[in-house]
């Protein structure tokens, strides 16, 4: 028993290094996708203090809109542009209808409102585009679909999916451009000001409403990118929403306000759950992936309540 827990997994890693590499790669890709969802959360939380539960559903909604438009005869790239437009309208609508009237409410009320938004988007998306899962239009968007296999040794084999590589590249580009946007542009500076202190930002003439609409739009774009990537891995349907829950432990690890935290947290959860499932999951019958991420986050929190990148909390009265 002890051997199975403490020694055997490592022996396996050593004996099948190609497989171990493959596991790491899968963990990396899953982590990137978790990180992208978490990134959407962080953007909104930073700027408005809203824990946007609907981020997961926005991923599906964006993907569904894209595919749905394409199914109705819109060319892929036009559909992509239209979807970006839809996300813009959504951002504006959310700011107008949900955020503005609820300003200054307690966290839990805002959280509930975003859960209400989740329900609305599920109903709306299925109402317009139908409930059946759809295939992501990967090829039409010019994304790679094949795979490359690296063979070495007698049975050594590592397979990399091109779409996964693309996902990683796009994630890096998104994070980099967000970084530039935050640091180099006027709106980005305003955004950071809002994140620091709403009142102070208001007093120097920054429009909160405008900023909120912009972050929701940015989160919508991140959601679209995530939706395309994840949709290409499985399919586009609201069942995907459950996968989006994984972004929550990622946030816990990375902290609600840290973009690097979201990335690192995503990778930790991605690696952790794949390695845990494949090398230890078998001991308890497998399937531990469904909760391992949360337990990792929970244990982590017990030792570092402020998250990976958060500052130590000094309680004051």
């Amino acid at each position, binding site marked *: 028993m002890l051997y199975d827990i403490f020694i055997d997994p490592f022996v396996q890693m050593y004996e099948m290094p190609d497989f171990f590499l493959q596991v790491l790669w899968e963990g990396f890709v899953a982590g990137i996708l978790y990180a992208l969802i978490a990134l959407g959360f962080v953007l909104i939380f930073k700027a408005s203090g809203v824990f946007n539960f609907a981020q997961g559903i926005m991923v599906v909604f964006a993907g569904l809109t894209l595919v749905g438009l394409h199914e109705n005869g819109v060319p892929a790239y036009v559909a992509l542009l239209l979807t970006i437009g839809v996300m813009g309208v959504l951002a504006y609508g959310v700011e107008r209808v949900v955020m503005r009237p609820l300003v200054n409410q307690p966290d839990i009320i805002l959280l509930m409102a975003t859960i*209400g938004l989740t329900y609305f*988007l599920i*109903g709306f998306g299925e109402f317009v585009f139908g409930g059946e899962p759809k295939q992501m239009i990967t090829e039409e968007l010019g994304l790679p679909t094949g795979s490359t296999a690296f063979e070495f040794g007698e049975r050594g084999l590592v397979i990399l999916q091109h779409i996964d590589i693309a996902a990683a590249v796009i994630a890096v580009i998104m994070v980099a451009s967000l970084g530039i946007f935050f640091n180099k542009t006027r709106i980005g500076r305003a955004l950071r000001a809002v994140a620091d202190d709403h009142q102070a930002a208001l007093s120097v003439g920054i429009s909160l409403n405008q900023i909120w609409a912009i972050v929701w739009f940015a989160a919508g774009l991140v959601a679209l990118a995530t939706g395309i990537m994840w949709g290409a891995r499985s399919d586009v349907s609201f069942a995907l929403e459950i996968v989006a829950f994984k972004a929550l432990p990622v946030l816990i690890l990375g902290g609600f306000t840290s973009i690097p935290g979201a990335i690192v947290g995503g990778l930790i959860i991605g690696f952790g759950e794949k390695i845990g499932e494949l090398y230890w999951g078998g001991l308890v019958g497998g399937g531990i992936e469904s909760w391992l991420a*949360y337990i990792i*986050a929970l244990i982590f929190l017990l030792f570092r309540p402020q998250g990976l990148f958060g500052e130590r909390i000094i309680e004051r009265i």
Partner: protein
Amino acid sequence: MFYREAGQFKTSYKADQALMPILQDRIGLSVILVVAFVIIPAFANDFFLTSIMIPFLVFSLAAIGLNILTGYCGQLSLGTGAFMGVGAYAAYKLTTMFPDANVILMVLLSGVFSAAIGAIFGLPSLRIKGLYLAVTTLAAQFFLEWCFIRIGWLYNYNASGAIEVPHREVFGIVASGAEATPIVRYFIVLCITAGIAFLMANVLRGRIGRAWMMIRDMDIAAELMGIRPLQTKLMAFAVSSYICGVAGAMMVFFWLNAAEPSSYSISLSFQILFMVILGGLGSLSGAFMGAAFIWILPVFLKFIPGTLGIEIAAETVEHVTFMIVGALIIFFLIVEPHGFARLWQIAKQKLRVWPFPY
């Protein structure tokens, strides 16, 4: 005008501390109880009892349970569904282990197990607060769900992986199983829910209820006033989980008759959370109002078009229901973030001054 306490003087602290110090409230409650215990059983059909009243009462109880934790003690939980599941599985194990025992007693006892599990998952609450805690309760949700699937002992190794409610009689009346009539189930559920609601009202107006609210409103100050945070929070977790566990056991024993692990999934947790928030955090009557709204509205939306002779495809109804429920949640949060309970108070205030608002 109609709701006016003028002339009702309280001459003792005892009278002032009563659950309902105002006569009109007492009359209102009596009317509700008469409707619940006499009128509904006398006139309602099976559909109304099984699909509206029983689920409504079960969910009300679960909402009370969550309200204790979230509304009164301020600890946000997304694991309600799993705690309800613990109650259900515990009740199932108890009744199959002791087939001759009183099934109602077993249902009430099952809550003890969910209370224990709830307290264990409440331990991190000492260090983790707010939304962070909510995410950690998801660990409870998903871990327990996994247990319901993987631990065959819990469902007696049924090939179906589900728990099926056995036939049990209490004092010669069939109380559970397929032969139990809706009216019997309704009375059991009604008595348990009303009983627990009453007992909780007692706890909440006393020392313990106050301690929970102190933790909720300002945990640091509460601690400086001598409240032990861990004990108090754990107690809230335990009491809340007990109630949720009983509700979960009632859900399978007196309503659904069989349950798969997916019956106690995260969506159930959200359903209950909606009820609590819309009904009003920190309000027992709000729990009932929230449950009525969240449960009955979709049923209403689903069956009304049919009875009015409008042909709408079933899936469209479902989609529209989602949209309407989502939109109404946002709408009510904007109109009154403190829920129906506050709306009701405002309405009472209006009645008090009507017809002269000034």
